């Protein structure tokens, strides 16, 4: 049995930040990620970040990922296991893992005094006719194709969802030489930042708000997508249909926190619409209702990488401190992080996030 002070599940922005904070505090840290490469969604993000200098503004997502990975590797007391998936969490602090090395799989058991669950999020999907036709992808898949594997998903795309992810991916599709027929969103307003929306609009891509996807058609592959206007009850209005000849439909309708481990271990869970789904109740320092189990990043509620990194640092500091590994300037650091997260959630677009967090906190 592997023994560690803190196990971090998930090596995305929040997990990496949590490991660094715990490493700095002097705790023995083990971090696992199911991917061969750490960095999570950051590694697909070729655009520059906004925000303050603390969250790497003007740096591209994957560069932030590389920076964090490099920092993690500089700590002797942080061990990382790539291609390792957490399978189960059991009472008493035992976690089982599946580690892949080449074609071989190993079954590992870890005893951890404290656990930071930073498992991120899952993409939401939509029910519409023929939604299982090839050529219909989630936004994450399209981003993985293009930005990680340098493969175009198709020739002409209809984007469903005008949030930041939908807008940014539309722009990246254009950059890759893929035609974007349009962006639709059922909401009456564009969900993403106006800078992103203006950028794609300037490139000639229409953004149609108040429209939903009705159906996809094609023989072996999507050839046509039909959209329709929705009424105030989100029901399609007949006679308002518009057809698009496309070979790709990209679904970017939001994320839901990945919550399986919190349910497994018996954390008190809450459905919070504003945070994207079921989340564990947690205190100001990200501890759940189960002692020594912490949450950080999108698995605590859907937000952005910037806040995920701050949450990760907070959880890492708090988890270490609770085990007796107190960072030399713990109070100052924590105060600074609390202020930072408050600033990040201060904007007009973050009203729902603030409300969501109020509901989920105890």
């Amino acid at each position, binding site marked *: 049995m592997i023994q560690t002070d803190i196990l971090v599940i998930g090596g995305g922005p929040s997990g990496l930040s949590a490991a660094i904070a715990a490493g700095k505090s002097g705790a023995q840290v083990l971090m696992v990620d199911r991917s061969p490469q750490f960095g999570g969604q950051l590694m697909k993000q070729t655009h520059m970040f906004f925000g303050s200098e603390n969250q790497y503004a003007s740096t591209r997502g994957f560069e932030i990922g590389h920076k964090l990975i490099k920092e993690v590797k500089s700590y002797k007391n942080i061990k990382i296991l790539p291609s390792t998936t957490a399978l189960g969490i059991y009472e008493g602090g035992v976690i089982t893992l599946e580690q892949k090395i080449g074609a071989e799989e190993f079954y590992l058991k870890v005893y951890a005094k404290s656990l930071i669950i930073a498992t991120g999020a899952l993409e939401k999907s939509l029910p*519409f006719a023929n939604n299982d036709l090839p050529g219909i992808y989630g936004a994450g898949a399209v981003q993985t194709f293009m930005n990680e594997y340098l493969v175009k998903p198709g020739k002409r795309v209809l984007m469903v969802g005008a949030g930041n992810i939908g807008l940014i991916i539309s722009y990246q599709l254009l950059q890759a030489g893929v035609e974007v027929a349009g962006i639709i969103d059922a909401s009456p307003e564009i969900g993403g930042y106006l800078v992103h929306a203006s950028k794609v609009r300037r490139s000639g891509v229409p953004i149609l708000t108040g429209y939903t996807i009705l159906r996809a058609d094609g023989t072996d592959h999507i050839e046509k997508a039909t959209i329709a206007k929705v009424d105030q009850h989100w029901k399609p209005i007949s006679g308002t249909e518009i057809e698009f000849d496309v070979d790709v439909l990209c679904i970017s309708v939001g994320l839901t926190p*990945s919550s399986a481990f919190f349910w497994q271990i018996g954390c008190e869970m809450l459905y919070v619409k504003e945070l994207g789904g079921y989340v564990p109740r947690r205190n100001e320092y990200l501890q759940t209702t189960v002692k020594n189990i912490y949450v950080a990043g999108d698995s605590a509620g859907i937000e952005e990488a910037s806040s995920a990194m701050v949450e990760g640092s907070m959880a890492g500091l708090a988890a270490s401190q609770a085990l007796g590994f107190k960072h030399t300037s713990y109070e100052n650091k924590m105060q600074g992080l609390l202020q930072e997260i408050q600033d990040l959630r201060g904007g007009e677009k973050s009203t729902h996030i603030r409300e969501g967090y109020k509901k989920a906190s105890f």
Partner: protein
Amino acid sequence: MTNDNIILCRCEDVSVQDIHNVVAEGYHTLEEIKRVTRVGMGPCQGRSCLMMILRELSIITNQPIENLLPDTYRPPTKSVSFDFFVDNSKEGGSKDDF
């Protein structure tokens, strides 16, 4: 357009119509519906479909999503073969040399 070709669960090929049918037969909770349709029980273990299933169920049974618990989560979180456990248990299931 029928609900037949609206797929909720790709792994087990369960459509919106299938859910309507079992609700009409009297199965109302996710647990019951999972048992009769296997919805959300394939290789993805509900990762890509659970929220969509809960949303449809909330519309069909006319109750808020908050009241629909997403059922029980048990380890393992992903599909692993029995071989995997058997092979590893022979060696005591641990690897201490990391």
